[in-house]
């Protein structure tokens, strides 16, 4: 079962939910945590895993053999990203724009284009206190997160429980991280910003046909409009976490909530069990 933790708005508590969910369920079954927020991965701050392996993530960018090239311009014509330009007797390549689709090398009539890999990030894995951990890190200055996210997800152990920490937003990195999940937990806060971005996140997961539920973080501030929205849209609120200085203090120090305040472990186990029930029920419905 794959459970992804997303939010729309940043800073609502995705990392808090992802890490504590993993730490609370690790005893019952093997659990794997994938940090797919590859622009700003933070799960490691809380899990402090011993990293035991890593692999560079790279995309294949073109390399032109000038001896063979006739400067016909076919490569520039087929490149949808303007990553190749042919000017007179020069071929200019802009590796940062290249998505690595391979069209130029395949379609070059002179077979003058080969590919070389350009590193854009790294995938790392290790163990932390019974949780199997994988994270991706986009190299600073690089633009494209999806290839790094794709690589991290290749390590998913599909036989057990997989928890995915998703980046904020609603665009391609979010879709890449969330797609294929059995359930998506959307973390939000009871403010107008939280509500606005929750509605966008709900639209995104619905577009992907993934069932969702809400964790409402920092309750006690703001207003009740998120609850009203969830009721209207028939989205279950699976857990509420109050605005609490002790919770904030533990978070600021990189201490997992379930370690600092162990009474929370049951709440996260209940959250997991509710999600599992909903996924099982949905699977039974689709089998019928």
């Amino acid at each position, binding site marked *: 079962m794959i459970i992804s933790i997303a939010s729309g708005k940043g800073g609502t508590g995705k990392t808090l939910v992802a890490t504590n969910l993993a730490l609370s369920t690790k005893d019952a079954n093997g659990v794997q945590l994938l940090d797919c927020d590859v622009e700003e991965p*933070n799960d490691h701050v809380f899990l402090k895993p011993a990293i035991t392996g890593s692999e560079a993530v790279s995309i294949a960018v073109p390399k032109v053999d000038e001896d063979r090239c006739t400067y016909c311009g076919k490569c520039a014509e087929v490149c949808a990203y303007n990553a190749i330009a042919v000017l007179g007797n020069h071929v200019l390549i802009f590796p940062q724009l290249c998505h690595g689709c391979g069209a130029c090398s395949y379609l070059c009539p002179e077979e003058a284009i080969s590919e070389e890999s350009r590193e854009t990030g790294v995938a790392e894995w290790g163990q932390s206190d019974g949780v199997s951990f994988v994270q991706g890190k*986009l190299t600073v200055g690089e633009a494209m*997160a999806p290839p790094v996210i794709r690589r991290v997800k290749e390590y998913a152990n599909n036989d057990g429980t997989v928890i995915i920490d998703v980046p904020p*937003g609603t*665009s*391609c990195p979010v879709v890449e991280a969330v797609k294929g999940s059995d359930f998506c937990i959307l973390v939000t806060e009871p403010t107008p*910003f939280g509500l606005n971005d929750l509605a966008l996140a709900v639209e995104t997961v619905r577009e992907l046909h993934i069932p969702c539920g809400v964790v409402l973080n920092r309750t006690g501030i703001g*207003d009740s409009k998120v609850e009203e929205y969830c009721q209207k849209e028939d989205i279950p609120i699976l857990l509420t976490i109050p605005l609490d200085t002790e919770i904030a203090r533990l978070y600021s120090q990189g201490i997992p909530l379930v370690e600092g305040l162990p009474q929370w472990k049951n709440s996260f186990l209940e959250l997991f069990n509710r999600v599992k029930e909903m996924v099982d029920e949905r699977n039974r419905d689709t089998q019928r």
Partner: protein
Amino acid sequence: MKEIVILSGKGGTGKTSIVGSFAALAKRKVLADCDVDAADLHLLLSPSLKQESEFWSGQVACIDEDKCTQCGLCQDLCRFGAIKDFRVDPVSCEGCGFCSHICPVEAITMRENMSGYWFISDTRYGPLVHARLGIAQENSGKLVAMVRQHAKQIAEEQSLDYIISDGPPGIGCPVISSLSGASLALLVTEPTLSGIHDLERVLGVCRHFDIPALVCINKSDLNEDNARRIESYCSTQGVEVGSKIPFDNVVTEALVRGVPVVEYADGRVSQEICTMWQKVSQ
């Protein structure tokens, strides 16, 4: 004209609340919401829409079932796994067009993709350029570039002094698109280990693109030790900490009422934001 972009790396550190207050404090400016994935600035500025435009960007492959002979070449060659059972998954398609070039029976065409909207609005603080990326769409970087381009145009036409941009979280494509060529980046962080880690990465992006940076520690009293760590880190990096804003529920109260916090309360939070604006606008 000075273009100031507010970034943070980590989400939820208070970028939009600070930009909303800058909107109230700054004279002669245009506002740009560059967080096109999850735009929130309009919730503080009550804009009245003047112009709405479609954002067409990128393409999606489309297979003509009548022509397709199911030879499978497109599926084998697509590196994004976007073609399965001779159908295109538009969410996975990156619009490269490789399949349309190699299909032996020319059954694949590329269709233009409408991937969002951008808007020009009036607010009581001045013009606002904002956008909404379509759900699950790509090219957020291009939409950010579009927002900035129109904000710049307005600033030039009206001879304004400032472009104030609310940036997206992270360090990837839309952040780079918000940042490149700006005059100054204000990096809003919080005194948590995650906040510090993310600040280091976003400062790295500013360095990479050679943009001067200034740091603001928001909710600084939540963990004084970490706030000091940020200050000493910044001093080793030669980056100024422009202000330390204490945690206060008035920020959320102002947000619920849909007004910038400097117009809602005149306590320390507002004083620190005023100090910050003075430094940023110099």
